[in-house]
């Protein structure tokens, strides 16, 4: 999908609804809202063609704040509703807003199936590693050991890694962003929207009330340069304060090297190819965890393959070309019939 940037001259303001935003002061959701409101006008899509579909959760209140068509549905089902919207009208730009609980606990099945089918939906997964709206229970992305209202002695569950799950479901697009980095998040969202297929953007989001600083190991000032790797297609995988560090492949493992040390040069550093079909390296990149590794941000995987709703539309068009049944009366009187006079 190539989009005419800005032909409509819309601005972020026009994407703000008249409803008061009701998240807790300091919630990461605010910044994400800003990013979406900045990204949408860039896409050259008329406002009425946006459908913002959410489930239930703090994050899922999102549609109310967007001056587009919106559906705040039921817990876990945003993916299925969004699939229906997109199938029904492929010309729409469909955005799914979902939390780690909404998408990966109750909504896990719809999530993996929309990815498998490659429905062209932009899936913004607000990952705060907690159930916010119900006041602080662990979620499928909570770290093992997390003490929450339902795990007073620490969880004993192993978390999902959203990126791995996306690839396990045969996914074509996965990106990661950080709530506070509005500019980068906006860029990633535009790329997600431009990808034809199910685009999952995991946004690390801070819940100030029930899981404050869960991403701090990655985001705190002191470490962030060493613990965030901003990926760009076609660019070497460099990070560190002076971009002095990089990633190299050793066998089937990634390793961190420093340019200039042990004879390492820029040429040794892996160059990011988001578009390759082979998910092996995407998997490794998506799986990196701090503090051992930097956490990868940006578009990790963006493999193009036909989208579901296009395939469906295509097949219908084919049948409409070839089938003699062109209207209901054709069907009603087709096959074996007999007249009574």
């Amino acid at each position: 999908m190539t989009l005419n940037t800005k032909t409509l001259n819309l601005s972020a303001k026009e994407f703000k609804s008249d409803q008061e935003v009701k998240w807790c002061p300091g919630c990461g959701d605010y910044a994400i809202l800003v990013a979406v409101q900045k990204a949408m006008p860039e896409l050259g899509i008329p406002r009425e063609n946006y459908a913002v579909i959410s489930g239930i959760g703090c994050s899922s209140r999102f549609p109310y704040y967007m001056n587009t068509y919106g559906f705040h549905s039921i817990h876990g089902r945003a993916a299925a509703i969004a699939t229906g919207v997109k199938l029904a009208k492929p010309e729409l730009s469909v955005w799914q807003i979902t939390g780690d609980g909404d998408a990966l606990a109750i909504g896990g099945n719809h999530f993996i199936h929309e990815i498998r089918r490659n429905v062209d939906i932009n899936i913004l997964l607000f990952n705060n590693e907690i159930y916010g709206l119900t006041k602080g229970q662990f979620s499928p992305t909570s770290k093992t050991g997390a003490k929450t209202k339902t795990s007073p002695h620490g969880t004993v569950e192993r978390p999902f890694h959203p990126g791995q799950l996306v690839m396990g479901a045969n996914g074509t697009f996965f990106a990661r962003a950080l709530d506070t980095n509005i500019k980068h998040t906006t860029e990633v969202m535009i790329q997600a929207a431009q990808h034809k297929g199910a685009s999952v953007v995991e946004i690390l989001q801070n819940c100030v009330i029930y899981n404050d600083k869960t991403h701090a190991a990655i985001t705190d000032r002191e470490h962030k340069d060493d613990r965030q790797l901003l990926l760009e297609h076609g660019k070497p995988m460099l990070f560190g304060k002076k971009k002095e560090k990089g990633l190299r492949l050793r066998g089937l493992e990634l390793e961190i090297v420093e340019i200039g040390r042990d004879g390492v040069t820029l040429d040794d550093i892996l160059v990011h190819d988001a578009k390759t079909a082979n998910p092996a390296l995407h998997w490794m990149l998506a799986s990196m965890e701090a503090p051992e590794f930097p956490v990868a941000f940006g578009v990790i995987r963006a493999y193009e393959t036909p989208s579901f709703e296009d395939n469906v539309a295509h097949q219908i068009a084919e049948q409409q070309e070839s089938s003699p049944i062109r209207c209901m009366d054709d069907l009603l009187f087709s096959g074996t019939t007999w007249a009574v006079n």
Partner: protein
Amino acid sequence: MKSVESIELKEVVIRFSGDSGDGMQFTGMQFSDTSALEGNDLATFPNFPAEIRAPQGTVDGVSGFQLHFGQSHIMTPGDHADVLVAMNPAALKANARWVNEGGTIIYDSDTFNEKSLKKAGFASANPFKEERLDDRNVIGAPITSLTKEALANSGIDPKTALKTRNMFALGIVYWLFNRPLRHSEEFFDKTFKKTPELAEANKTVLKAGFNYAETIEALTRNYKVAPAKIDKGTYRNISGNVATAWGLLAAAEKAGLQLFIGSYPITPATEILQELARHKSLGVKAFQAEDEIAAICSALGASFAGSLAVTTTSGPGMALKTEAIGLGIMAELPLVVVNVQRGGPSTGLPTKTEQSDLWQALLGRNGESPLIVLAASTPANCFHYAFQAAKLSIEHMTPVVLLTDGFLANGSEPWRITPMAELPAIVPPYAQKTDSEYMPYARDPETLARKWATVGMEGLEHRIGGLEKQDITGNVSYDGENHERMIAIRAEKVRRVARSIPELEAFGDPDAKVALVGWGSTFGHLRTATEELNLAGKPVAHLHFHHLSPMPSNTEQMLKRFDKILVCEINTGQLADYLAMRFQDVRTLRYNKVQGMPLTVKEIKAQVNTIIGG
């Protein structure tokens, strides 16, 4: 050629039965089509086992197809069979008690050996005696060996040859009822265009069966069933599931909408999805979802985007959809939910029919969540009620549940095709862009339906959802008084549908003081029983509910005309309870049978007779 007496009959019930793999459904459909083309009215009822192909030769694996055809209006597939075709001992065992006294049993004598009899659960070598069928007209034909013989020189391999056994049986029955072979022969020619040897084989065996019947002495007479006097028009045979699919297609075309079905396979509803998946040329989007919840949710999404949205299922799947139905009620979006009922609770009896999901449809949701509930009553009128469900859903902006059941879904009957021009208009209550802001929950003063702004309509952007809505604006509202008002509005909106639906009518004796009352697929049996009772001079009337929520506006008044009301259902009394709740002054008697099978006319009549003293 022997000389035979040809006796004129008014109506006949035939039951074909054999192993799941014996092609009994196909055989039955061939006989139905031929009979329909010869001008009979008819009704059919297939009865499958729950296993795909249960062990050959066992009673559990028997598949049956019953068919009732006649000179007059046929409304049921018949209680008991006048003719039973049994391809093996298990088929006999399973169906023994369904053969009328004086009826005929045609069986494949090749299969009635010691081993098979034992497998079927017979204790002796004389199964007919064991089942007390001695007085029936029992005709053994070596169907298997004669089939083989008929194809001996055809070049057809033995396995394929054996698969045509059912055509030998059909040939016998064709002879018995004086049916031409022509229609089936044409069918084979058309179907096996690319494998003419198969067409030939089937035709050969069919003919062999026919000739065999003509030849043997056992069959000394055959029967004629004259054409029925039926309304003018063009007819076709149609099953309930196909009729449902087509009714939805027709509604979409009338409303100028794309049809979207989100569904997940489940017996006995699957064919609706399958049928719609075939008609992509009509623009249908048939989405097989990952589960029932995704199915209904995708439909809600499609509705939001402006499609006529449908989801189809059966009881257990309906249970999974109830949360999302609530969302549809709150969002006030059109949505048709079809529940093809089957035996419950839980997985229950998946291939058997039942009417036990009425309560679930009416009240099986959290919160105060009224919606429209309709029930079709015959295979063919599934078309009409599916159309109607869509029309009401769109025009009143609320989910509609359409109930059918396994009996309707798989049963079939001739249907006078309703051309599109004869169907009423469906007018979606689209929102219009005006100078004032679009108020998603402002309503039509007459129907209380809100206006539909579908995604993509410029200037009508708005947000909906499952939280309580503020009256008119549709914003989220936690205000208690608004909540109470919205609950009342949603209920009143459904109640007002009664303004546009037909009144309840009494059929039968106008002076009747006794009424038979039913809903759904018991229609044909209750109507036939009423006719027969009236003919016998019994003052009985029949009231049938197609609309269960809301009920027709004259319901109470109509019920009060009768001294005795017998509510007949294939459940433990759900409609009867519902009537008791709605109309406290109305007392009802009940007749309930929950055996996975339709009621019989005979037992209904017996019940009425005990009431009125018969």
